[in-house]
C-alpha cells in the first residue's frame, strides 16, 4: 500500500537524485475506474490519465498494478547516525551547501532530523544517508557522518543491498501511538523509534 501511494503521489527513493521521483519511473498503471472498467494508462494508452496518476494520487480509480522501469543496482552504502543538538547548525550548513551545489553527486540520498521525545526529555539528532554505489564512507557524505561526539553504538552505516536498507526503515515503524511517522531517541533505555524517512 505504501509503495502504491509513492507511485501515484510523487515519492522519493535512494535513487531520486539520478532517477527523479518514484512516479517518474512508472511505465504503466492498471486501474479500475468508477464504471468498473479496467484500463491501462501509459505513454500510448490513456495518456492523460497516465500523466494525472503521476502525482494525482487516488482521485481517478483504484490502481491494481503498476510496472516500473528497472535498472541494475548492486550494493550500496549508508544508514543512520545519531548525534547531539549542538551539531545541528553545522549539519544545516552542510546540507545547504550540498543542496545548492549544481555539481552535487547524484548517487546520494539524505535527510537530516532534529527531534524531541517526552520520555527522554531532550533533543536528539539523526542523519539518514545513502550512497547508491558500493563505496564505503564516500567523501561527499563525510560532513554528515563524522561529527563527534555522536552516539556511535546506534550508528548503522554499512554496505548492503537496497532491500537491507528498506527493511531497516520498515522495521522501525511503531503502531501503538497516535502518529504520523516519527523519529526520536531515548537515551536512558536505548530505545530508538525510527523515522519513516
Amino acid at each position, binding site marked *: 500500500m505504501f509503495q502504491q*501511494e509513492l507511485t501515484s*503521489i*510523487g*515519492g*522519493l527513493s535512494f535513487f*531520486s*537524485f*539520478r*532517477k*527523479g*521521483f518514484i*512516479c*517518474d*519511473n512508472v511505465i504503466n498503471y492498471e486501474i479500475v*475506474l*468508477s464504471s468498473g472498467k479496467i484500463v491501462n494508462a501509459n*505513454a500510448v494508452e490513456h495518456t*492523460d*490519465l497516465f*500523466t*494525472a*496518476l*503521476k*502525482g*494525482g*494520487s*487516488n*482521485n*481517478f*480509480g483504484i490502481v491494481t498494478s503498476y510496472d516500473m522501469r528497472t535498472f541494475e543496482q548492486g550494493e550500496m552504502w549508508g544508514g543512520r547516525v545519531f548525534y547531539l543538538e549542538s551539531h*545541528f547548525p553545522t549539519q*544545516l550548513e552542510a*546540507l*545547504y551547501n*550540498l*543542496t*545548492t551545489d549544481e555539481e*552535487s553527486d*547524484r548517487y546520494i540520498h*539524505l*535527510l*537530516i*532530523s*532534529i*527531534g*524531541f*521525545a*517526552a520520555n527522554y526529555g531532550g*533533543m536528539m539528532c*539523526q542523519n539518514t544517508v545513502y550512497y547508491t554505489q558500493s563505496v564505503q564512507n564516500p567523501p561527499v557524505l563525510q560532513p554528515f557522518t563524522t561529527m563527534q561526539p555522536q552516539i556511535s553504538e546506534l550508528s548503522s552505516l554499512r554496505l548492503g543491498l537496497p532491500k537491507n536498507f528498506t527493511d531497516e526503515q520498515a522495521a522501525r515503524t511503531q503502531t501503538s*501511538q*497516535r*502518529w*504520523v*511517522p*516519527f*523519529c*526520536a531517541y531515548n537515551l536512558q533505555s536505548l530505545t530508538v*523509534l525510527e*523515522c519513516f524517512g
Partner: protein
Amino acid sequence: MTTTIKPNLALMQTIAQKMDFTLSPIKAVDGFVYALTFQPITKNMLVESAAAGPNSLGLDPADGPMMLILFLASWANKKDDEKVVQAQQKFVAEIDAIAEERCLGSKYKFMNHAFTGQNVIDGFGQQNKQKLQAVSKKYDPAGFFQKRVPGGFKLFV
C-alpha cells in the same frame, strides 16, 4: 505535515531555532515525540524528472533546488489530538509567513508528507489542477472518487 522553501541557510537555522520554542506548550503531552526533518530536492533531480516525461507535480528544473521540511509527531492519547495538530499547524504557518516575507516560499507541498487539509493540489499550480480536474471529469464523471471515497487530497476543493 510539510512545507517547502527555497534553500537558504539563515531561514533553515531560524526554523530549527523556532522549533523548540514553538512546541514547548505541547511537550508535556503523554508520549509526545517530535521530529523536524530537512530533505533536499536538487536542481539535477528536477532535470531527471522532466526528462522522464510529464507528471502532475508542477515542478520545473527552474524551481530547484528546493528544501522539503517535514514535521512529524506522535502522541499517546486521542484527547490531545486537537492540541498537537493545532500547534503543528501554527508552526507551519509561521514558517510559511517568514519564508514568504523573505521571498523564499514555495507553493509546492510534498504529498507524501502532507497532512489532512494542506493545500497540495493547488501546490501543483492552477494549470495542473485544471488538467487533473478535466481527467477526473472524463474518467469519473459522477465524481465517485471525489465524493464517495474518503481520504487523500481531493481535486474540487
